[in-house]
């Protein structure tokens, strides 16, 4: 099994965390999220992102509002909920701890 293959599940698991981080800023449209993620290791596609966002909304971590667009029908803009903010903070803490643990083990 080569390295990139080993890292796929890791990135997959972290995608939810990354989405919460992106949504924590300003309200975002899916196409803009994809553009942000594109050049990173977390590059993904609508087929993955929409189901994930729907799941996060069901868990009440994110919400969306409709906004008119200059071309075409209104669009969904996603934002973080209060519950999502709490969870993001917890995830950030966890990540920091994880980094520390990894650093403690050294090379």
């Amino acid at each position: 099994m080569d390295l990139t293959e080993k890292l796929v599940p890791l990135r997959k698991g972290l995608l939810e965390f990354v989405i919460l981080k992106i949504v924590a800023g300003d309200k975002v449209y899916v196409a803009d999220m994809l553009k942000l993620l594109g050049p990173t290791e977390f590059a993904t596609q609508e087929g993955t992102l929409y189901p994930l966002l729907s799941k996060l909304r069901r868990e009440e971590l994110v919400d969306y509002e409709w906004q008119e667009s200059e071309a075409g029908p209104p669009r969904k803009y996603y934002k973080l909920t209060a519950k999502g903010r709490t969870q993001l903070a917890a995830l950030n803490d966890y990540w920091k701890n994880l980094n520390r643990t990894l650093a403690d083990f050294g090379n």
Partner: protein
Amino acid sequence: MQKVVSISLNGNSYQLEEPGYEELRVYLERAEARLADSPDRAEVMADLEQAIGEKCRALLGPHKSVVSAAEVSGIIREMGPVESPDGKPADAGFAPGAAPGASTTPGLHPRKRLFKIREGQMWTGVCNGIAAYINVDVTWVRIAVALLTLFSGGGVFLVYLVLAFIVPYADTAEDRAAAFGMPFNTEELIKSAKKNFEEFGDKYRWRREWRRQQRHWNRQFKHMNEQLRVATANAAPAMSQTARAIGSVFVPIAALVGAIVFVVWILALLSLVTQHTIFGWALPHNIPLWVGILLLFMAYSVVAAPLRAIRHGGQNAAGYHPGWNVLHSLMWIGFTALLFWVAYTFFPGVRELVDQLMWAANLTVSTISETIV
């Protein structure tokens, strides 16, 4: 020139080239299937449709109103396979390291299935479909079917006829893709056999397919008749002598073949009812007797229908005359009686069969009369 299909994506209409429409339909169907367990299914589907619509709109302009098939493929590649975060894992969600859009989507290839293929068909397209299914040249399949028909004493031909009316034509782009499909393996074979068996249970499908097949044959033979009639009319009146000759050769042959088919069928039916075998061949355990009888009836009509059509074609070539029909009926009765007599006299199996039947009939009659008396 391409046929264009108008579709509505989340409330907005778009025009796609037909192959593009097929591909999109398959993509959305797959997405829906993958999200079947998800409570967000309806919402995600609407989101996906809107995203696809937006991508379509970006491609269109004042001088371009149709999304091409290639563009639809591009859009679908961009969208990527749909993955349910709380459902089953998708086959290729995260393209490892690669840019989105570069990933191949194996989930999009339709499963390989057996279809009849019209392009380059000789008769019904069954051989053509089998050739596509096992990925060999159609000529080899035709030779194999012809040889097997000879060596199996016609059994393979019956199988062919059954296939001709239960296997559907590949009429849509999706069907055609599935007909050529991926390289096949045993798993696929078992799966498609299962699926075909499930469809086999759908009695209306049988009837529908059969009617369609009959219409197809009727059309073909009508066309043939038309050509023959035109040819005859052009050659008239000097033809009438020849026409009579054609008729007098054709009608007895048709009557003989028809009688043979009928006698064989009756004997098969008798043997199935009395001994639960067809000429020594036992039905598989899981097939009840009534299904066997039903299949036998179907097989008969499958064989008899084209024969009848050919006969009518031949008669009409000889100039239509009701006398041909009377002649044919008389000859058919004569041949049938003769064949029964020959079978009863020279084949001990047949005699046993008929005697057994007579015995059963006698028994029934005596039982009934005893009950009445």
